[in-house]
């Protein structure tokens, strides 16, 4: 479905999406419309945008962002936010890079383990000790920045070159326009969409975001749900970080910093409410694709960075406004 949407605007979406469109889900429709318009505009500006290699480039950029935004979506659905995703991703990439001499699989596992550990601390502090999510993840971001700054000179020093497997996963191609990181994204993204819709935990995440007190009174162990949410979010961020590290080949402290605000933006554009309980991962995927295609378009137009950022901000604002009006009138 994702390739279909990117390739041509007369998309043939999956049944779930089709049903939602038929049911008059205006925000999803609007998003697909915006995405289609952007793709057509890109194609008109430069014919080569619709070529396979350009498509591959767009997908290559989208996958890590969409994964990180997926974690962010989970947090936002439960009524929180995670401002430590960028540093979590950087930390995971760092550890993977340093451990790459131990073998690729060990290295990746070590990176993911770092993500899980960070997420557990966040989740337990937020769920059990009731620290405000904004502050907890902000504090965690600061703690990780300090540790990595010191660590890069001492215990995390040495080779930060990624192993071949990670390089292949982050930037390699399977066939034609399909990069390896798309496969990782499809697997995890699919699990996320299904998990949010069909599993008990998925429904509990929506319920906790909608009304925490009611959940507690109904016997939901809210702290377990929140711990799971932040752990999953950090795990997704770790995967994204390893993919980003694999694409760039080496790691530094600024590796994923530029992904933090876009990860929130993608979820917001996709219609996930920052207040919790409303939204889903399908919207976030569209949001991430819109951001990626928009980025490509502005690059094709050789727009300078200044105008790019202004446009970026305006688009977030306009889409959020359209979305707010849509829910208000519904």
């Amino acid at each position, binding site marked *: 479905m994702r390739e279909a949407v990117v390739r041509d605007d007369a998309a043939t979406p999956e049944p779930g999406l089709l049903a939602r469109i038929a049911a008059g889900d205006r925000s999803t429709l609007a998003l697909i419309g915006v995405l289609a318009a952007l793709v057509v505009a890109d194609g008109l500006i430069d014919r080569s945008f619709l070529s396979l290699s350009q498509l591959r480039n767009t997908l290559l950029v989208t996958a890590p962002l969409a994964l990180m935004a997926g974690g962010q979506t989970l947090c936002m659905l439960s009524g929180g936010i995670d401002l430590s995703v960028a540093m979590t991703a950087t930390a995971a990439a760092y550890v993977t890079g340093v451990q790459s001499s131990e073998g690729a699989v060990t290295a990746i596992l070590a990176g993911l383990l770092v993500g899980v550990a960070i997420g557990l601390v966040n989740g337990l502090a937020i769920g059990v000790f009731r620290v405000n999510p904004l502050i907890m993840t902000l504090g965690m971001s600061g703690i990780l920045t300090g*540790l990595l700054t010191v660590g890069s000179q001492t215990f995390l020093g040495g080779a930060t070159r990624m192993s071949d497997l990670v390089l292949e996963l982050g930037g390699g191609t399977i066939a034609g326009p399909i990069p390896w990181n798309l496969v990782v994204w499809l697997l995890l993204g699919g699990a996320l969409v299904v998990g949010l819709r069909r599993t008990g935990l998925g429904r509990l995440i929506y319920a906790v975001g909608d009304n925490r007190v009611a959940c507690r009174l109904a016997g939901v162990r809210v702290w377990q749900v929140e711990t799971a949410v932040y752990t999953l979010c950090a795990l997704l961020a770790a995967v994204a970080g390893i993919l980003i590290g694999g694409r760039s080949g080496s790691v530094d402290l600024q590796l994923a910093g530029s992904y933090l605000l876009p990860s929130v933006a993608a979820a917001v554009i996709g219609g996930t409410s920052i207040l919790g309980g409303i939204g889903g991962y399908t919207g976030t995927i569209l949001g991430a694709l819109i951001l990626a295609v928009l980025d490509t378009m502005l690059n094709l137009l050789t727009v300078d960075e200044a105008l790019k950022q202004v446009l970026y901000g305006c688009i*977030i604002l306009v889409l959020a406004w359209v979305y707010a009006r849509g829910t208000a009138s519904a």
Partner: protein
Amino acid sequence: MSVVEAATRPLSPAVGLFARRHAWTGAVVAFFAVLLAWNASQTRNFGAFEIQTMLASTLALAYLAMAQSVVVIGGGIDLSVGALLVLANCLTARFMEGTGFGGSVLVAAGCLAVTALLGALTGLVISVSRIPDIIVTLATSFVWGGAALFVLRTPGGGTSPTFQTLVLGSGNAWWPALLCLLGPLLLVWAPLRRSRRGIAIYALGSSSDAAFLSGVDPLRTKVVAYAFSGLLCGLAGTATTAFTGGGSPQSTIAMTATLNSVAAIVLGGVALSGGIGGLVGPVFAVWCLYLIPNIMLGLGVDPSYGEVVKGVVVVLVVLVGGLLRARRSRTG
């Protein structure tokens, strides 16, 4: 935290109320005093020069923490304060370059007008669109960052040295920076806080529905809060120009500054849920956050661990503060 305990024990009703209201600020001031004494004991000949360095290098962040406080007290949160600081920094650095003292002051005044207007505009958009504050300011942070790049493509610009000395002081003269900091507090915030408009900001932050039903105009209140916040961001940008002698349009500066402002207000006793706190606590919190890495340097620890300690302190303060507030609301 024993300071809070001692301060909250009611003596007589009026004193008890005063103490309870200012318990957090008192605790932060005490914490600052301890840190300052600690740092002073580490440094030989600790004196006016060290104080001047502290005041001058924290002036921008102190303004920014105040800017964030006003918005959070009014029930919002502003992720664009850092970007607005960078924009003001670039504006002043570009247009102050090559001017004399008078020109620099004129440019600073113009810049403050611009940022106050941008702040008011943000408040207006939030009120009219009913999009959550955090989303609108996320979007505007991109816009201001882009605008800053328009104004100043690469780090550069300049300012007049007289202006720098007047704002920050130099050598042992620590009072200019302190006066600059007290200016907006005494001239704008003190009257505002006692006025209808200021009380409306607190009311809106405590409960927007109750405030609306009591006749508070949410739109006007939001605009006033964000306009004042914008003005303070402009001051922060101008202070940055004075401190660094130039402008730099990097988005990482904006990001770090915003995150630091949120950490400072939380440490300074402003509740993120709105309606609670003041502007003095966050300023002391900024100074505390400045002293922590210095003290660690004095102890022979890598100051990069300062970030770690800052993060832990902020999280612990929120944790303990939350527990204390919860206990107080249960018992009283």
